[in-house]
């Protein structure tokens, strides 16, 4: 039973510590901690791993699918087990904890508070807190003193920092989902986290005015509701994707100029732009110019969700096309709203414009229902893209009428590019 094997035959324990750590880090925390009973050498090898991940996989909850109804006792037992495990691990852990990942729906606030305090004293760099319980979790003040933090992901939390909070000076990546915080707090965080490069924000509550400032900011994804957004000092911002979910929109432009000019105007470094939901409608409020006062020299990819029958939205789309001389890729998804104010001869008039899209190679048009404006747009694209390679057409899945006539018409359009291919996908 207790065989003493020749120590020379042990093939793994003598690997360098950092290698063992790499191995242990790839194990769920439970298996990692259990290596402490393997042999004398392995007793504390786990205790220095810098990453601790606790989620419903590490400590499986008492159900197997989301339909099981849990009794209060199930929840309490599970909570005890989870709390116990985390307490034990943190207590026995030795050394810095660089990454801590907590994702569960079963926790009591006060426990998380004490863990955050522990982490703030142990050099936490990457923190993920996904609280999937019923109410939101208010992060404790010790959270705001985690000065080494570089990557932060919060789900269902409340952020109310102390007055003295001056931002996280090393924070590079911030991901907030269903977080409650005020306009001021958001602004403080964003403007004081000077190293911030990536910002992902989904459904913030309590914050409708977004002032985004970031000398190092490169990537922005926004989903949710806002009434006002502006970019101040974001010269490196190259990826912007905004999914606007509220339909009550305001004009934020100065004077007559439209929101597009006001909001996206300063972003001259843009490389990829994506809009979803009502954002294009938001951009269209005000007087839309033919082209912007600036050109987006670096803008290579545009993805829009818009209504082809809406005049203002179409104007915005055209304005963007005209202001992006180096565009490579264009994707438009048709939003079949009830609103239609595009005149019949609109696209005819555009035919006279000199709008040559000299670098456009790939165009994708989705969810079309074979409306005239859609066809006319595709005609416009085909006629003005000398290096076009593919025009991919995907129709909306519930069309029942006969499309052959429209397809024939499409195929007969004049193509500026000799290598242009039209690819038709009937199934989405």
């Amino acid at each position, binding site marked *: 039973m207790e065989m003493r*094997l020749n120590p020379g035959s042990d093939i793994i324990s003598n*690997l360098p510590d950092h290698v063992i750590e790499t191995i242990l880090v790839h*194990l769920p925390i439970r298996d990692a901690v259990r290596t402490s009973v*393997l*042999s004398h050498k392995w007793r504390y090898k786990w205790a220095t791993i810098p990453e601790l991940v606790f989620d419903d996989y590490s400590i499986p909850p008492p159900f197997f699918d989301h339909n099981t109804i849990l009794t209060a006792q199930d929840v309490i037992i599970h909570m005890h087990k989870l709390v116990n495990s985390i307490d034990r*691990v943190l207590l026995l852990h030795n050394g810095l904890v660089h990454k801590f990942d907590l994702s569960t729906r079963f926790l009591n606030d006060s426990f998380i508070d004490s863990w955050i305090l522990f982490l703030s004293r142990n050099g936490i760099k990457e923190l993920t807190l996904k609280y999937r319980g019923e109410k939101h979790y208010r992060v404790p003040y010790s959270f705001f003193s985690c000065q080494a933090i570089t990557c932060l992901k919060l789900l269902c939390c409340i952020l109310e920092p102390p007055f003295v909070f001056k931002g996280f000076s090393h924070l590079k990546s911030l991901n907030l989902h269903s977080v409650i915080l005020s306009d001021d707090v958001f602004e403080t965080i964003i403007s004081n986290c000077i190293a911030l490069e990536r910002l992902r924000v989904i459904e913030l509550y309590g914050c409708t005015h977004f002032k985004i400032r970031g000398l190092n900011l490169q990537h922005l994804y926004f989903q949710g509701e806002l009434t006002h957004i502006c970019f101040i000092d974001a010269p490196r911002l190259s990826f912007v994707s905004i999914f606007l979910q509220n339909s009550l929109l305001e004009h934020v432009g100065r004077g007559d100029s439209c929101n597009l000019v006001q909001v996206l105007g300063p972003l001259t470094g843009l490389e990829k732009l994506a809009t979803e939901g009502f954002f294009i409608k938001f951009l269209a409020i005000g007087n839309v110019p033919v082209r912007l006062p600036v050109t987006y020299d670096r803008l290579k990819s545009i993805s829009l969700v818009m209504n082809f029958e809406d005049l203002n939205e179409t104007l915005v789309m055209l304005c963007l096309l005209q202001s992006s001389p180096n565009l490579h890729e264009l994707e438009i998804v048709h939003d079949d709203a009830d609103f239609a104010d595009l005149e019949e001869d609109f696209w005819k008039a555009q035919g006279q414009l000199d709008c040559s899209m000299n670098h456009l190679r790939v165009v994708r048009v989705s969810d079309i229902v074979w409306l005239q404006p859609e066809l006319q747009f595709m005609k416009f694209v085909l006629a003005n893209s000398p290096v076009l390679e593919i025009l991919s057409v995907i129709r909306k899945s519930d069309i029942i009428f006969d499309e052959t006539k429209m397809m024939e018409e499409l195929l007969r359009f004049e193509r500026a590019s000799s290598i242009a291919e039209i690819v038709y996908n009937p199934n989405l």
Partner: protein
Amino acid sequence: MKSYIWLQTADGSIQQVEEEVAMFCPMIYQEILQTGMGSSKNYAISLPQRVNPAILSLILDYCRFHQVPGRSNKERKSFDEKFIRLETKRLCELTSAADSLQLKPLVDLTSRALARMIEGKTPEEIRETFHLPDDLTEEEKLEPLRNTADDPRIRLLNRLYARKRRELKDKEKLKNVGVEEEHVDERSVDDLLSFINGDNGGNPVSDSKVVKAAKHKKKNRRRKDQPRDSSSNNVNKNHKELDDLSSVRCSGEVDNILVRSPCETSKLKNVSDDTFAPKAELDPATKAELDDSDIDDELDPAMKEELDREVEDFARRLNSDWQEILSLGQEKKLAPISVNGNGSLQRYTSAFVFGWNADNSTIHRSAIAHIGNGFEKMLTQSGC
């Protein structure tokens, strides 16, 4: 004109490798840049000791494939999956060698593979896979290390350890009686508590066969009684058993202690399930003295015997300590045990601790500390 780099492994053998393949290893790359070595056979780059020729050829295969820029991610992944299908020893050597050559992607790949071999396995299986010695000392095995013990595998392990411990103690007992006494103490306290308190609802701490059997039979009854009414029948039963035992074997004073501390609904719950309780074995000599007439009829004979031994020993212990207890001048306030929701048997504890302290406070305290969270709390509360 292809250029080659010359590499020398620790055993002295030299081989030549295409330059772009060798340069894929950061360590070799650095060597070439900094020292200019490797361009000819006489100036071959010495590779770290952990790289032997067989492993080197594996590593070079890896480099040869991955240094080609045009491959798709899918291709690379597919190659990687086939590449790590090696025997465990090879895999470990490969990890070590890749690490010494600073080839991080390969270290990651092999680490993942090794992690897959560890994940979900029992310690025995893991030891077998990697030829690890099972050399934890007994004390080390006793310390609480796990973070959940609800896993049936862990509970099984707990039982196996407990059994092993008992066997070990058995052997030791035959040699060294003095040392044994202390162990006996530890066990008895825990056992007595568990015994008195009956079923702990699946607590792997009270691991002795005795208690297990007791738990087994009483479990069902317990469940029904537990929530609201104090399980008075159980209490009385325990009480009665103790009375019987004490009257048969112990002195009158001992009897008093036991009599005057009835236990109410016992809920010595250990929410943290992961502590080991040190177990002691009884002196085989004492076994012979016991008869099993007074114990709970539900237990099978083997259990009965052990139970007898436990209690007998405890009683003996208590007997000998009784003088100390008296001499300490402590008034034994043997008030009824108050058991609150999380089961801290406060006053009950004090009696024991005083008795034990007189002999060898540190040992006893640490022994008690092993027994479970509830008990620890008791200790701190009673000011020890």
